[in-house]
């Protein structure tokens, strides 16, 4: 079902999806079906409209903070949530920290450098992350 409902983006080379992504699709069937602009509110501080963008993408760790000894591999699958002119939101199995600078490759195959702005636990299995393009 997952293969039919979402774009695998640059992750197609690796057919094995991370367990937390499989679990996500089992828990929320509609998750990957969301499309179009995200409704906004009067108090919304963001400058640009965000669009649902539910897809697999690849994250490459570029600049790990000196004090953080990461055990994870330098390249991981992430699930994108939304996209705007300024940045991208995604789900990740590992906690990231504000100020970290890494690289995300979407379905178009173009690597984009991002800076992490916020990261919050999202269910038990992963973290929701907000980042801006740099």
């Amino acid at each position, binding site marked *: 079902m997952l293969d039919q409902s979402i774009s695998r983006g640059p992750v197609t080379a690796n057919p094995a999806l991370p367990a937390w992504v499989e679990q996500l699709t089992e828990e929320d069937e509609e998750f990957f079906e969301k499309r179009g602009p995200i409704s906004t509110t009067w108090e919304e501080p963001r400058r640009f409209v965000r669009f649902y963008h539910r897809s697999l993408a690849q994250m490459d760790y570029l600049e790990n903070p*000196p004090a953080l000894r990461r055990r994870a591999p330098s390249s991981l699958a992430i699930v994108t949530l939304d996209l705007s002119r300024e940045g991208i939101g995604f789900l990740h199995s590992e906690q990231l920290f504000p*100020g970290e600078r890494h690289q995300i490759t979407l379905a178009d195959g173009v690597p984009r450098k991002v800076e992490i702005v*916020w*990261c919050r636990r999202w269910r038990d299995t992963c973290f929701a992350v907000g980042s801006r393009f740099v």
Partner: protein
Amino acid sequence: MPLAPTTAGYMPIACSTLRTGAPLPFDLYVRMEHQQTRNRGGDHFALYLSRDHELSARDIAEFDDRSAGCLYIQFDASIEYSGYLQRCAEAEGDQNPLLRYQTVREAAKAMMLDAARGGGVDQVVRISEDFSRELVKSAASGELPVRDLFGLMEHDYYTFTHVCNVSTYSLVLAKSLGISAPAELEQIVQGAMLHDLGKREIPAAVLNKRGRPTANEWRLIQRHPSDGLKELIYRPEFSWGQLMMVYQHHEKLNGRGYPAGVGSGEIHPWARICAIADVFDALTCYRPYRKPLSTAETLSYLERHAGTTFDPEFLLCWTSLFREDR
């Protein structure tokens, strides 16, 4: 006594740091609290003694009576005040640890204030490094009983007072948890000194607001741990524990804190120390919208949140320090 034109531009100093027999290198002010000034909104200050006045023992006794142990100087005089404290410390040689502690803290506060007005993060980091070294040294030279320390603290919740208080409480708690290596203690003090670094991004109008913050203001306030971490994350001189003190001091063990909402197993022990010190100081300080709680009320509040917000073992250690002291 003439009223100073604005509330901005004054910092509190403890009367006990002033010495007799030498001319003051700065003007001294008192805070006015009568109805007229309250009606104008904000605090107002009046000139109490001008610079070059030679203090007598009687002057100091009068300060304590009239200003509850707290006087003010203009921000512009912070460097003169810092130099004055250093000269006093040198002149007095070996002091008792509490007096030495107070001098170290006051000097750091004056420098921190100067940095906050225009200095970059580098300056703040340098001051926090000096302060942590001196504070750990003064703690090593003798006992710093927590109740005596509490009496010395200023309780007015200016940001710079708050970070000095939180660093001191963090040091005391870390020591009583069994951390004894000076290098580690210095790191903890420095982490605590920088825990609110991200508040530099919050407008003073929001920080000092008397009423309840709006949703947007609250969002802005909640960003300060992330903003602080962003400033420091790629600096190689900081350990992970220090960075987590900055980032995780508002996290709760039940996962309902901010910014990340992580649970007990993911919160660094130093951040748990900082969380207790931070809330203890916030509640025992004077705020524009409420009176300070007593230590007994504050400890009881903390105990009610043991296990959900605060680490129960660390908290037990903190509360027992006050009980042992009684």
